């Protein structure tokens, strides 16, 4: 039987004032296994700890119970003390007789009685304790960033700058993401391309960074420190080694009617294309859906035009498998579809645009070459109306319940840009609230209103109608209680943003949950905002929730730091209190696998010894590195095969028994 020592702390008068410490020492002497019990003024002090160490040696104790303050306070202290005396640190149990006893009870007799019970429960548990040893696993010192927008680029750069290798997987042909589509950025009005392009180039040139553009993550296995990821590189039909990016192919391409996604579909592009001038890599890709060669077999002009012989119609998708220690999700966002907002004439009128479309119109590289024109007739508008919160803050089943966070600021920016270039255009913004928390944000918005004369009206637009070649906007001014009818030439809708739909598939592969809006959930909303619940998977940028560029960059850096913290370790030491499956009891039913939040349980066919016979059975295997020790599986397991080390069924029942004795 285990030899147990019990140490009852006075905690000065904190415990001893209400609990008769000596009586507790005496009462527990009769408990099974207890060979030694004593009390001390302050167990956590050096004197107290050395008393523990001494007793362990002197009485050859196999385990100790400390009756003191909350284990949340000093469990580690006492475990270390025990370890110093050669005891396994998990052979220490704490009876919380301060927070849960002396501090809440007045009556000394009652408190003493309860302290004895709590101590008994700890002894009963300790009698069933087993030495525990944390598992160790290695760390592959490379990181994967999924998504090559500003979030992904920044995370990758920060990791690479610290000396670790990073791969970026981006599904489109270039990195840059949404930010590359923007004209200017708030609140400084500096040009998006001017600040983004250098980062794109830096990422491409960085010796520690590899770019997998036009690529997708296909499969993920493994766990923190050692993920195996299958990446599919889609066929560009252009040999990236040979191409020199001259662009001759694009000029010669006869198929020029494909919708240009970079311009949000407002312009056309050729079948072979580079998304935009500063694309990284500067490498064309053939859109096989639009290419005559692929659709009809009759063309080949690009091949002829290419002096580098880089066009390769036979090219196929390539799949590579890489190992990583950490994965960062930076899958970004898109503006939601406005199909269900017909009252604003979005689908009917070319002059009703989303903000991102309008951004392209404002952009010098955009469909109008930067001149502000009505797409319906190419004329300069006289009046522009901005409508806020289209699809955001909705509870009607069509939109999003959340605030998209960036619209107030970019609308102010766009209004200001319009007014700056064309002071004669009337600009009206209909808003519900203007939300400007952020450094220099409110000042920025006030500048739009005060310095540029943008008219802000509190109230929503009810409908937009085409009328006599213009748009009639019916709205309300809530402060005046007036209904307004405004003639406008262009209407810009601040569409709600939503996570990129591709994120769902990736989330499922990595066992990262999504909330009801499809944003990835954090490990803890306040304290672990850039970590996903799956160890080794981190979140960066919009995929976690709406945020603007500075916030995205800040989060990208934070995610990078978390990755670095992980990669800088040679070994990962786990929490030894993890689930353990008894393979002789396991039915292989997979109940535990279904609810494990960490994907820590897998099943395999295994030879199992049962009553002296060998049988092949499907049994659960717990990955100790991935398991976080919640214990959900232990209750889901009908056969009782799954147990939790440190909190076994027998231990908890022994505590129950001791308390109810």
């Amino acid at each position: 039987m285990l030899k147990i020592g019990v140490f009852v702390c006075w905690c000065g008068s904190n415990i001893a004032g209400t609990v008769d410490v000596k009586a507790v020492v005496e009462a527990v002497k009769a408990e099974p296994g207890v060979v030694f019990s004593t009390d001390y003024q302050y167990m956590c002090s050096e004197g107290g700890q050395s008393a523990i160490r001494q007793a362990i040696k002197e009485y050859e104790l196999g385990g100790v119970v400390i009756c003191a303050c909350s284990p949340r306070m000093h469990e580690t202290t006492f475990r270390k003390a025990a370890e110093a005396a050669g005891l396994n640190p998990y052979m220490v149990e704490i009876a919380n007789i301060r927070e849960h006893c002396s501090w809440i009870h007045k009556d000394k007799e009652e408190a003493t009685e309860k302290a004895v019970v709590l101590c008994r429960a700890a002894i009963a548990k300790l009698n069933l304790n087993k030495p525990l040893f944390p598992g160790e696993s290695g760390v592959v010192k490379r990181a994967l960033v999924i998504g090559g927008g500003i979030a992904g680029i920044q995370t990758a750069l920060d990791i690479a700058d610290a000396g670790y290798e990073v791969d970026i997987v981006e599904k489109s042909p270039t990195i840059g993401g949404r930010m590359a589509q923007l004209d200017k950025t708030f609140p400084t009005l500096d040009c998006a391309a001017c600040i983004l392009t250098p980062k794109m180039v830096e990422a491409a040139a960085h010796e520690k960074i590899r770019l997998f553009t036009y690529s997708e993550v296909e499969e993920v296995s493994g766990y923190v420190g050692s993920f195996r990821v299958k990446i599919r590189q889609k066929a560009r039909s252009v040999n990236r080694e040979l191409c020199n990016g001259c662009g001759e192919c694009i000029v010669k391409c006869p198929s020029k009617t494909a919708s240009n996604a970079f311009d949000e579909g407002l312009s056309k592009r050729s079948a072979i294309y580079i998304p935009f001038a500063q694309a990284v890599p500067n490498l064309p890709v053939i859109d096989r859906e639009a290419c005559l060669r692929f659709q009809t077999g009759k063309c080949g002009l690009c091949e002829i035009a290419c002096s580098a012989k880089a066009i390769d119609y036979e090219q196929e998708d390539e799949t590579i498998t890489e190992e990583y220690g950490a994965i960062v999700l930076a899958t970004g966002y898109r503006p939601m579809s406005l199909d269900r907002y017909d009252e604003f004439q979005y689908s009917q009128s070319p002059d009703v645009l989303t903000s991102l479309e309008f951004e392209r119109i404002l952009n010098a590289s955009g469909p109008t070459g930067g001149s502000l024109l009505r797409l319906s007739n190419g004329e300069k508008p006289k009046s522009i109306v901005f409508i806020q919160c289209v699809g955001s803050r909705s509870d009607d089943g069509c939109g999003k319940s959340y605030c998209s966070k960036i619209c107030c600021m970019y609308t102010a920016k766009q209004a200001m840009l319009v007014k700056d270039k064309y002071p004669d255009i009337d600009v009206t913004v209909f808003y519900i609230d203007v939300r400007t928390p952020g450094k220099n944000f409110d000042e920025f918005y006030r500048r739009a209103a005060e310095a540029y004369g943008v008219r802000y009206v509190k109230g929503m637009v009810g409908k937009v109608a085409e009328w006599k070649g213009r748009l009639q906007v019916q709205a309300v001014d809530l402060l005046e209680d007036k209904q307004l009818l405004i003639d406008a030439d262009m209407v810009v809708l601040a569409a709600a943003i939503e996570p990129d739909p591709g994120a769902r598939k990736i989330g499922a592969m990595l066992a990262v949950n999504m909330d009801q809006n499809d944003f990835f959930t954090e490990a803890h909303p306040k304290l672990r905002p850039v970590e996903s619940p799956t160890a080794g998977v981190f979140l960066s940028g919009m995929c976690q929730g709406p945020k603007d560029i500075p916030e995205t960059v800040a989060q990208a850096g934070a995610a990078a730091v978390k990755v670095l913290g992980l990669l800088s370790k040679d070994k990962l030491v786990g929490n030894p209190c993890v689930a353990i499956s008894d393979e002789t009891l396991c039915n292989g039913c997979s109940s535990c696998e279904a609810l494990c939040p960490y994907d820590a349980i897998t099943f395999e066919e295994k030879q199992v010894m049962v009553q002296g016979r060998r049988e092949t059975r499907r049994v659960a295997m717990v990955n100790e590195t991935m398991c976080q020790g919640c214990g959900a599986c232990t209750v889901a397991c009908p056969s009782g095969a799954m147990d939790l080390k440190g909190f076994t069924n027998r231990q908890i029942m022994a505590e129950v028994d001791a308390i109810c004795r």
Partner: protein
Amino acid sequence: MQRIIGKMREKAKELLEAGTVDAVLGWKKGDFAYDPTPAFFYSTDELDMLAYDGFCGSNLSKYLVEYGKEKGKVLVFLKPCDTYSLNQLVSEHRVDRENVYVVGVGCDGMLDVQKLRDKGIAGIEEIEEAGEDLRIHTLYGLKTCPRDEALLKKCQSCKGKEHKLFDDRIGAEESRDIANEDRFAEVAELEKMSPEERFAFWRAALSSCIRCNACREACPVCSCHTCIFDNARSGVDAKANASEFEENLFHIIRAFHVAGRCSDCGECSRVCPQAIPLHLLNRKMIKDIQSFYGAFQAGDSADQCSPLLSYSPDDIEPDAFDRWKGVM
């Protein structure tokens, strides 16, 4: 359903001869009019002993759990309700679907010989199905009984005549329509009682328990290699109910362990030698699951997730369970 036995034998013969299957799991003729036994048939010349009549109530799915791969592929005859159980076993990886050839057989509702005995019919020698009636030849003369009055409890509220999985079917369209009582009606009756009355009801019922484990052994989802109640290391093992508490514990935990997995096949009540209405506990769980978490029946398909292994952020609070009473 004796009318389809010919086709069943033909099918079994065909598949055994073709080598498609290595064994046939069905029912074997017994000594009396009402006691066919589940049995494996390994050769075609045994097949004349294959039986299918009104007393084939046993759910053969359970036998597939222990059916090892080394024996090869097996043809199993399943009634519609039995297929729910097999689906559940397949979903729990307890049966390899590839290893089983399912022939769904039609069902007229199965009979309970005890119901005849309870009517005072003793010395049963032969039972004929004559339309809506049973003609029972006994040592003490000819007796008759309406067929519907001799149905097994589980067949009084049939989940339907649809086979939820099968490779082939025989007589599925010919299943006789039987009175289909609301399967939750009994549960609802109990819910209406006061807690004291319910307590008395269950005390009376469970105190009859002799812990023979028939309910557990017959239950297709109670398929643990070692039950916690047999496992000396579980801390709750017992061979008898040595106190009222243990009578309760065994059945509460059993119902909880099969919650979300129980296909409501009714075997627990059918096999209980003490006539304890054990299915009510399981049905209560099914009813609760449906009213708390939406439509769900284990065994409907092999790829659905048990409600106890999933959640919704806006689930009801545990203390609010009784507000949902009577919703179903």
